[in-house]
C-alpha cells in the first residue's frame, strides 16, 4: 500500500524566512513524488516533480529514499507563496494512481 504523510496542517512563517514543508511516504518500491499547490480561488496544480529535479518559484524538493521523505523547501518565503500544499506519490506498478497527503496550509505573513 502507498501512503503519504504531511505532519503539519498549518505552517505559519514571516516573509523572508526559510520554509520547509514536510512529506514522508510509505511505498515498497521506487515511487514518483510530486508537490501540488492550490492558491486561493484557484485550481489544484502541479508545482514540481522529483524526476525533473527542477526549481519552481524558488521551491525545491529532494527525494531521500533512506528517510522516505520528499520535503519542500524555499530559502526565502514570499507572501504569494501562501497556499495549500499537497505532497503526492505514484508507484510504478501497473495501473498505479496518485496518492495525496492531507495537505499543509502555508501562511506567509508580512
Amino acid at each position, binding site marked *: 500500500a502507498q501512503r503519504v504523510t504531511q505532519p503539519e496542517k498549518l505552517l505559519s512563517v514571516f516573509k523572508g524566512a526559510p520554509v520547509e514543508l514536510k512529506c514522508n511516504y510509505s511505498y515498497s518500491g521506487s515511487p*514518483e513524488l*510530486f508537490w501540488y499547490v492550490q492558491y486561493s480561488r484557484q*485550481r489544484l496544480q*502541479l508545482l514540481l516533480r522529483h524526476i525533473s529535479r527542477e526549481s519552481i518559484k524558488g521551491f525545491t524538493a529532494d527525494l531521500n529514499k533512506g528517510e522516505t521523505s520528499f520535503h519542500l523547501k524555499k530559502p526565502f518565503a514570499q507572501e504569494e507563496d501562501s497556499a495549500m500544499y499537497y505532497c503526492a506519490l*505514484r508507484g510504478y506498478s501497473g*495501473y498505479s*494512481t*496518485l496518492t495525496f497527503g492531507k*495537505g499543509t496550509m502555508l501562511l506567509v505573513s508580512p
Partner: protein
Amino acid sequence: EAGVTQSPTHLIKTRGQQATLRCSPISGHTSVYWYQQALGLGLQFLLWYDEGEERNRGNFPPRFSGRQFPNYSSELNVNALELEDSALYLCASSPNQGQGNEKLFFGSGTQLSVL
C-alpha cells in the same frame, strides 16, 4: 486552451437520492481521474478511467460508480447518498495512460451537499 471542466458547480441532494457529476477533460487527454476532497481528509482517490475503461478504483463502496464516454468525458454517479458523501469532488485529466510521471490537470470541482 480550455481546462478541465466540471458540472454542476454545486449540487444539493437529500439522503438516499442519486447524484451525477460530469467532467470534460482537456482536449487530447484520454485519462480521467475522480477524487473526493472531504473536510479534514485530503484528496481520496475514487476512480480512474482511460480509453473508456476503468483502470483503477479507490477504497469506496460500489454505490460510487462512473463511466467514460467515447469523447473521453466522464460521469461520476453516487447512489443512495449518505450525509458523509458531502464533499468537493475533483476531476483531473492527463494525456496518457498513467505511465508514471505525467502531471494531472484538475478541474474546479463539484461541491456536493447531502442534507
